[in-house]
């Protein structure tokens, strides 16, 4: 990291790390999940975009979620920030179910920030940075209470000059705009930030800057991240734990190093084998795992069965998500279940 580690102003660092008005009053110090998904399913018509998904987002930790386009990862993001409601199952904020009322949900949403993929689309070109970053504060009636100073502090925290207050997004390239997007996501001092492909629209030299910034902000503020990407290589860099999603369901999850150095599920292995090599004289893609063409799978079968190069008889029965050492895997080949039938 070449950026000098600026002494980051963490506005609410001393005393309570959050705005005090969280829905749960107690302040136990245990690393309890900020947001928890319990058997969440989201259907759009006949499609199960998210299928019986359970996961926990812990303070100071990054959960990386990988999967290909259409796997449901963006729906997970929308569920977590409360833009969608689950068809079944439950989302919890600090141990309590998400409120049903819009007003209640607004209170929860204040603790969950979001950084979007495309910084060119996500910022209103007519607004100044003061308005963009200050908007969440105004929307929650917090502007009068030192809002302007807060915006200045946030711009500084993401590495933008304080003089940027009255500039507009068009003044910045992709990296600068993504910094603005991050400042806005942090405006209400959230406990959790959902990052939906935050670097995939950026230049390579800028991706590293933004990832370093996210890591630094997390270290200082103890943020939880849900980091969503189709790029396993990026996810690997930022995550404590990785969840691999296919057809809205978890195929494999566990500690980052375990998943990326010893993948067990055939889908994880295929994703990893598609990562390009690092030297022109040691090419990797020739030995990549080739997936079969996607076809509809019968109900009750493993959702990955049609594409799996190692599909066998047992796969007509859906494998349960089982613990194998320090990870969870849903595959008969790994867990041994169903193979004897």
């Amino acid at each position, binding site marked *: 990291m070449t950026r000098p580690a600026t002494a980051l102003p963490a506005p609410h660092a001393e005393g309570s790390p959050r705005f005090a008005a969280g829905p749960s009053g107690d302040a136990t110090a245990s690393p309890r999940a900020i947001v928890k998904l319990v058997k969440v399913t989201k259907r759009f018509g006949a499609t199960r975009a998210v299928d019986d998904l359970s996961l926990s987002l812990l303070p100071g930790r990054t959960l990386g979620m990988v999967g*290909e*386009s259409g796997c449901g990862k963006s729906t997970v993001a929308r569920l977590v920030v409360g833009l969608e409601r689950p068809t079944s199952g439950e989302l919890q904020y600090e141990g309590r179910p998400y409120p049903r009322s819009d007003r209640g949900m607004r209170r929860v949403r204040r603790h969950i920030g979001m950084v979007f993929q495309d910084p060119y689309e996500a910022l209103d070109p007519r607004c100044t940075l003061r308005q963009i970053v200050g908007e969440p504060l105004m929307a929650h009636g917090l502007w009068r209470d030192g809002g302007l100073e807060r915006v200045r502090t946030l711009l500084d925290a993401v590495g933008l000059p304080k003089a940027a207050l009255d500039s507009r997004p068009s003044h910045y390239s992709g990296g600068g705009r993504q910094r603005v997007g991050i400042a806005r996501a942090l405006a209400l001092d959230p406990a959790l930030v959902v990052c939906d492909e935050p670097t995939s629209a950026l230049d390579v*030299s*800028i991706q590293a*800057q933004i990832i*370093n910034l996210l*890591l630094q902000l997390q270290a200082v503020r103890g943020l939880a991240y849900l980091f969503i990407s189709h790029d396993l290589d990026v996810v*690997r860099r930022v995550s404590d734990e990785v969840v691999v999603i296919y057809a809205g369901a978890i195929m494999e999850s566990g500690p*980052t190093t375990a998943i990326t150095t010893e993948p067990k599920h055939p889908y994880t292995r295929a994703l990893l084998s598609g*990562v390009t090599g690092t030297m022109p004289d040691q090419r990797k893609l020739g030995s990549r795992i080739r997936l079969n063409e996607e076809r509809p799978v019968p109900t009750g079968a493993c959702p990955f069965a049609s594409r799996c190069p190692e599909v066998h008889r047992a796969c007509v029965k859906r494998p349960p998500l089982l613990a194998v050492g320090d990870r969870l895997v849903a595959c008969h080949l790994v867990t041994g279940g169903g193979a004897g039938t």
Partner: protein
Amino acid sequence: MASAAAEGTGRPLQIEGLSVRYGEFPAVTAATVSLGAGRVLGLVGESGSGKSSLALAVSRLLPPAGRVVAGTALLGSVDLLTLEGEALRRARGELVAYIPQDASAALNPVQRVGRQVAEVFRVRHGLGKEQALAQAVSLLAKVGIRNPGVTARRYPHELSGGMRQRAMIAIALALRPALLVADEPTTALDVTVQAEILGLVKDLQADYGTTLMWITHDMGVVAEIADDIAVMYGGRLVEHGAAVDVFKEAVHPYTSALLSSFTSGRLAAPKQPFVAIEGSPPVDTIPPGCPFHPRCPRAFEPCATAVPDTRTVATGHRVSCHLTEPA
């Protein structure tokens, strides 16, 4: 597919002193690139580096606002930049073909895919409807589309991103061009699909002996497919050589920063900050002198004022940097 240019498959490309401007803005300045017949060049740069302008100029697809103000681009003995009228029309597809980044924007949304591929054969080989379609179907099979007969009857929106990109590749390769220019065609695709498309283009390129220029910002893609690499920054070529040489011993500070950012990201343990290049690439104005000097950790006096000469530092390895000046 016996066309006039068929025997020309895989011609050498020699770009010399190419400059492209949009109004007064110098998008590409004095770029010199050479690429042997049937070889693969990875043309690397960030947004605004001029890589796409260079590719579009060579493909003769620059938008009206852009113009070539100097230079030549010899493909074999033909200067692509001076072709006009019928000669230019014939050159498209036969001498040079272009694969865009976004296939869904390039395909006609209201025409079936088969017809769009067949159009090449109808117009250029004068085939009838049926014959042209049959050719199109066999070409779709060649680019790895299963059930090509069925796919040919589909509209672009009915296909996945990977399938659409395969259809674009089919159109580009239909006339077996001597030079194929691919403008980041895998950037928008999933990892597994990217791997398949890279493999496909590499196989077909080797099969046809096509000379290939692949534009990308991803060093991983270069590592996988390129024989040679050319790195652009601020409209200028800063380093050019065999991919293995440049990956092992990058000389220009920009190239080495890009490569160490790339490899450190790959090798570092999770959650370790990794090597980043400070600042952003130039957007509206190109800095005087070496365009990289405001971001360069090794910049010294001449860098801000004088554009460095291009020097050969090893066989086939050329660098534009004041640090390479003989003491």
